[in-house]
């Protein structure tokens, strides 16, 4: 493949000149969430509407002319709850839940008129206040979108735009102006810690790999994000693939590698496609391949799709997977830094970690350390989901409290009908299946790697699931346990068999079969699995159980001793009952009941015989007065 050597400065100037000739920019979010909600239809409708209006608009920015607007797609803009999202620059308007039917109004009012479309702007669910500009919306205002910021703006399929925003400048600096030692040193001083879950210092990892004598070394980007509900890495790969490539180039420079792999889970087709395209374009531009920046050094990059196993996010399993073996972890040591891919020294970093690297090299470690805490500098992205008003992808400096995240950025907790409920907070599950539940007591804890670990959970890759008062905590633990027992690789005994039995014990609790020995046994087992498992998956799998036992012991006891689920979610424990004051005696339930468990006179409160009831729920469905509970 013929490659040309790229002149970064020339590309920057050229792109800036082109964009300067555009009056307005329309950025349509093309992250997976918005695409699923019809963002591409909006894009096409907008293009059509503009054409119909005979406006001077460009879609590709390669024509040398002045124009009224430039319409482009971006990666995830973060506010997934409100998608499909459309941002208009330079005003910074953000339109929410845009449908194809809305586009003509956008063209008339905003693109031509320069005014926001009022009915499409964000309306605060609690106080009804309107926010036309994105940066004023509390969801965005409270964040520090240091790493993911560009995701929502630039066109991920346009290398020029990435370069125009200073892209590949850090890589050039690392290759031309720095040595492997100084690159490692800079990352070390910055205090960057792995974002995949463990929080291991990236600089140390690089230095260890650099110290290994080997003609061949590898850099691997771990894009096998698998926690349920987490999508930080996906958004980065979809929204800013070149940043990841650049981070890998710098890592390669730091350790002396000439080959790299991006391991993306196959369930992220858009991420695979965008990363592949970015790698191709970077290679064509001479940013990958031989003689990088005239240094004589090479770096070749390959994209590899995973095969759908959660455990392949574990580094040794991931390496086995690339080698074509079954994705099973192996004992460490040796660490990948000593013997990784094909037995060669290998650095393996998470997507977010690598995406942070160019920023540190470009802006310096001291700037990086101005964000976050002493032990955990910088920012962290979280996928905020669950019973919260604003769900989406957020980024905050370490040290931010859960209260700020849930109540200010997230807009507070919602009840079962989706309405804000100021007193609804029960717990937040942090770190997905490897993390744990945190209670109201932890709301004011400044979040960083150590503080969260100290209270029995972990930052993990950054999933945050908010739970309201109607959530049964035992069922939450069961959900995660079901996940890990399915996703365990099946190699070591504690993880494979232990998760299976923890799940069985949780089922016993939920279904009323537990006795006084169940909780102590569950706890003993959980500890044995945590201490004795082979890899991180097994060692952290009991965390949801242990944190539940630690913070919600009473709720567990209620299930076990009184055979009662305090939230009423566990069907097997529910006591079927007709609440007499609510019952109007209409007889609808009597006619529906398949086992004749309900009796009663017309217009008199009916009675349900719990010993006959099979809890099919048919009665509650027909009851117009919500008088039947526990079925």
């Amino acid at each position, binding site marked *: 493949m013929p490659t040309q050597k790229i002149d970064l400065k020339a590309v920057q100037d050229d792109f800036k000149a082109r964009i300067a000739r555009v009056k307005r920019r329309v950025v349509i979010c093309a992250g997976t969430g918005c695409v699923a909600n019809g963002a591409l239809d909006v894009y096409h409708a907008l293009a059509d509407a503009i054409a119909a209006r005979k406006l001077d608009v460009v879609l590709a920015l390669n024509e040398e002319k002045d124009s009224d607007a430039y319409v482009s797609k971006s990666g995830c803009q973060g506010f997934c709850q409100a998608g499909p999202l459309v941002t208009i620059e330079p005003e910074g308007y953000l339109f929410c839940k845009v449908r194809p039917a809305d586009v003509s109004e956008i063209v008339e009012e905003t693109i031509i008129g320069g005014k926001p479309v009022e009915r499409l702007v964000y309306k605060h669910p609690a106080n009804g206040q309107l926010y036309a500009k994105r940066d004023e919306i509390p969801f965005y205002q409270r964040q520090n979108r240091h790493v993911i910021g560009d995701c929502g703006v630039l066109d991920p399929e346009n290398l020029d735009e990435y370069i125009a925003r200073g892209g590949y400048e850090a890589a050039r600096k690392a290759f031309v102006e720095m040595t492997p030692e100084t690159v490692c040193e800079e990352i070390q001083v910055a205090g960057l810690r792995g974002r995949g879950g463990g929080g291991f210092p990236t600089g140390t990892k690089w230095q260890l790999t650099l110290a290994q004598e080997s003609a061949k070394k590898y850099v691997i980007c771990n894009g096998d994000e698998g926690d349920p509900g987490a999508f930080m890495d996906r958004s980065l790969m979809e929204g800013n693939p070149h940043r990841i490539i650049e981070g890998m180039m710098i890592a390669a420079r730091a350790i002396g590698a000439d080959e790299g792999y991006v391991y993306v889970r196959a369930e992220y087709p858009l991420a695979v496609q965008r990363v592949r395209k970015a790698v191709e374009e970077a290679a064509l531009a001479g940013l990958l391949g031989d003689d990088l920046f005239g240094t004589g050094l090479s770096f070749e990059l390959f994209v590899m799709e995973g095969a759908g*196993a959660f*455990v392949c996010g574990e580094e040794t399993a991931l390496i086995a997977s690339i080698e074509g073996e*079954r994705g*099973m972890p*192996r*004992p*460490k*040591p040796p660490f990948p830094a000593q013997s990784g891919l094909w037995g060669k020294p290998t650095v393996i970093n998470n997507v977010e970690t690598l995406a942070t690297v160019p920023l540190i090299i470009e802006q310096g470690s001291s700037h990086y350390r101005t964000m976050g805490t002493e032990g955990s500098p910088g920012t962290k992205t979280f996928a905020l989901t669950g019973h919260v008003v604003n769900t989406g992808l957020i980024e905050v400096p370490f040290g931010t409290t859960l209260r700020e995240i849930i109540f200010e950025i997230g807009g507070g907790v919602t009840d079962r009908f989706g309405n804000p409920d100021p007193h609804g907070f029960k717990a937040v599950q942090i770190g997905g299946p490897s993390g744990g539940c945190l209670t109201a007591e932890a709301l004011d804890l400044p979040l960083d790697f150590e503080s969260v670990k100290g209270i029995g959970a972990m930052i993990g890759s950054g999933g945050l699931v908010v739970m309201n008062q109607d959530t049964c905590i035992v069922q939450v633990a069961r959900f995660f346990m079901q996940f*890990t*027992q*399915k*996703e*365990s*690789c*099946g*190699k*070591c*005994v*504690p993880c*494979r*068999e*232990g*998760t*299976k*039995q923890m799940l*069985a014990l949780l089922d016993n609790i939920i279904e009323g079969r537990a006795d006084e*020995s169940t909780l102590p*046994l569950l706890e*003993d*087992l959980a500890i*044995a699995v945590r*201490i*004795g*498992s*082979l890899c991180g998956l097994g060692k952290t799998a009991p965390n949801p159980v242990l944190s539940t036992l630690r913070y919600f012991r009473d709720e567990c006891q209620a299930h076990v001793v009184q055979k009662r689920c305090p939230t009423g979610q566990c069907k097997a424990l529910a006591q079927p009952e007709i609440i007499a004051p609510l019952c109007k005696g209409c007889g609808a339930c009597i006619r529906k009941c398949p086992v004749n468990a309900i009796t009663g006179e017309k217009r008199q409160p009916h009675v349900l015989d719990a010993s006959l009831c099979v809890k099919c729920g048919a009665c509650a469905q027909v009851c117009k007065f919500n008088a039947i509970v526990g079925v």
Partner: protein
Amino acid sequence: MTDKNTITLNGRIVPIDNGKNLLEVIRKSGIELPTFCYHSELSVYGACRLCIVEIDGMGVQTSCSTQAVPGMVVRTHTDPLRKMRKIYLELLLANHHQTCTTCVKSSMCKLQDLAARMGVTEVRFKTTESAKPIDASNPSLVRDPNKCILCGDCVRACDEIQGIGAIDFAHRGAGTTVVPAFGKELKQVDCVYCGLCASVCPTGAITPKSEIDSVWSAIGKPKTVVAAQIAPAVRVALGEMFGLEAGQVTTGKIVAALKMLGFHKVYDTSYAADLTVLEETQEFLVRKTENRKLPHLTSCCPAWVKFAEQYLPDLLGNLSSCRSPQQMFGSLAKRTLPEQLKIDVKDLFLVSIMPCTAKKFEARRPEFMTDGVADVDAVLTTQELGQMIRQAGIRFNELTPDSLDMPMGFKTGAGVIFGASGGVTEAVLRYAAEKLKSVKDENAEFVEVRGLEGVRERQLTLGDVTLKLAIVHGLRNAKTLAEAIRKGERAYDFVEVMACPGGCIAGAGQPIAYGPAVRGRRADGLYEADKTLQLHAAQDNPYLQKCYRETLGSIGGKTAHAWLHTKYKNRKRYEDASFSVSDNGVQQKLQVCVCVGTSCYVRGSQKLLERTLKHVKNAGLEDTVDVRATFCFEQCDRGPTVRIGQTVLNKCTFEQVCGELQKQTAMV
């Protein structure tokens, strides 16, 4: 500070002594840490987690995967460690079919042993898995997944030592199982029945298939004459089942036991091994003189023969055409004994007692049947014979030795050392030396070919002929050597291959003995037996000389060839090895099979398959065409091979596929 090369183990100072890992150091110091998945000859796996220890500054670690570092402070049985080990055993037992009283592995089972040792008196967890079917479809091995604890020993043994990988892990999490490829039965895949999996299995999940009942039933038939042949390796191992030292030769006791069990005649497979030596040496020397079909490859190991048929079709011509001693014995016995014993051949029931599970498969090969009846009617392993002796209540150790029946009970030392790796080579050399040097040396020994290393290359000169030899055991070693021979990197005259590490003495039918130490003692036993015999070279066996004079004619002659030699054929690795990669909902589809076997794969069949799939989709042919990936069409040299309907396309291109598809779909 303590001495440089020591650790502190439970408060005691213990030397490291170049231990491979912490586990070995601890075991050497006299503490038998429990393990399921640790085998010194296999890679460290770290899955059973029973060898956990507490190390100061490192917390709880598995000792198998930890290097002993001077100054380490280690504890092996603290309260938390013991509790954890107990929980892990309980976890394994919860889903283990606990049919211990009726399990063939009972009293030899590591799970049973460790549960007792660790004081597991109750299992607090419930069974969560449903029963899985048992695979007993092949003649050699029984796989019971319900007893599998997924330690992976079998998987690693099959892959790392035999280079086959007939079984591997499938699925993950709670659904993890060990299965043959595509979830088929063992007999449908490339298993060579060496049984190494069974000999490393800590539980009863893979066991040799028992033929005890058919032998008892033959013994019970009034007219039937039951005759036994005892393989060399059996005599140095059976005693272990009765508390005797490994390597102790118990031939006489075995004969006595067999007679007490009701066997009418007891012969020695070593007699047939002597016969093999004569036939094989003759064959080899002809090849050497004519300089063709070299290297000469031995053929007495049935697992190796099946392996060669599957993986080395181009070298099958080099394999000795000699049947194995078991089958030479079977053929000769069925043809000569009825006359000698004055019985009908139908009434002769021939039982061989073997250290080997593959021998069960070999005895059922169609090549070794006469008029549809197997020459060898039943094959018992050493273990099975031990069980029969126990069933009959015979006090083995107290037996007065009895002598073997003649003439087929007479052997020389050459036929006895067959049981150890290098034995066949040495036996052949003892005859070849006499022929090439034209000097008789009744006590010639070739100690240089003995040993336990996996590959041994030797060169020696007999008369004016120089012979290059290689002795290998472990089929992975054999495969590597065959590759080197194919590429011309290595050239030999004679190659001996045994599947089991150490040769037949370590066969899967032998009494359970984990680890390599026992092998050496058994081999020593055979070489001692050789020394105690009067004759050491096969050509000196007077009964064989008589047999050739009266029955077989000349060595390598017409009768000998018909009775004692065989042919080999290419063998498919998988039965019906295809799986659907496109929707298979509609019947009567046009079948497109793209070979993705190794040879076609390297010639680009994967790409071809992908393009074909895409083409079928784009051309809207999904309802009429079923695209399958398949394994070997045995046309490897002409790959990639694609079969469309009945048409087989060699050196197939994408364009050819499209053309043929168009042609055939137009007819549908």
